[in-house]
């Protein structure tokens, strides 16, 4: 997700479009990205550490984005 202090023009565009479709009451929209990484076998602590490294070096830009890693079975 873009960091809270970073302007998110895409989120702003979506926010602007919602009332035009009759959806009211949304006070803000922020748009982020979601990556689904697949592995065979168990997601061990080492695998998770690798994914954290991927998130930090390539998938996100820590200067402007925060990230969170979640495991789904």
């Amino acid at each position, binding site marked *: 997700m*873009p960091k809270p202090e970073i*302007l998110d023009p895409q989120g702003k565009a979506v926010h602007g479009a919602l009332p035009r479709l009759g959806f009211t009451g949304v006070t803000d929209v922020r748009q982020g990205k979601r990556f689904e990484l697949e592995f065979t076998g168990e997601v061990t602590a080492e695998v998770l550490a690798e994914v954290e490294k991927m998130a930090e070096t*390539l998938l996100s830009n820590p200067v402007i984005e925060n990230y969170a890693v979640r495991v789904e079975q």
Partner: protein
Amino acid sequence: MKVGVVTFPGSLDDVDAQRAVVIGGHEAVALWHGDHDLKGVDAVVLPGGFSYGDYLRCGAISRFSPVMTEVIEAAGKGMPVLGICNGFQILCESHLLPGALIRNDHRKFVCRDQKLRIENNRTPWTSAYAEGDEVTIVLKNGEGGFVADEATLDRLEGEGQVVARYLGGNPNGSLRDIAGITNERGNVVGLMPHPEHAVEDLTGAGTQGLGFFTSLAAHAFA
């Protein structure tokens, strides 16, 4: 001097940059993103365009191309590197320059002749200008908003690392009207507008961009 111009898949302005290098009095050397050496060049230009389709983030994938490993190493040793537009984005993604470039605040692509003030003429890319010079060169970008945290912006200002600033209205939401910056050492410069499109009277917005390329010669003999 031998000036390398890197072509990534999706680069647009590599040939214009080569042409500007030649008009600036140098030999242009074409470099490919898959190259593992810099072919003995004295300086490198990362041109504008949409390298790797701007997938993921602008410059994010280019930063890990083989040639960038070489560019990053050479920049660390003091080689002059100029990143224009997409090249600026690549330099930020490479952490050769601080901050990042995000979508224009008004969400539209902007293409216009842009007035700039040269704020720092102590880099190998700007020494042909006088500090405070006002030049007009082409600006064309969709993701040209320069952002960084307040501490970084203060440091850039305090250390004289702002190279160029937008005049006559901020075209893309860049914080503090920043159009270009340099690293602490002063050899790496990122610039959102395109000096390579302003080097000939026949086309473009005049010739006031040529100084970015003639500066190198002055630097070499300084």
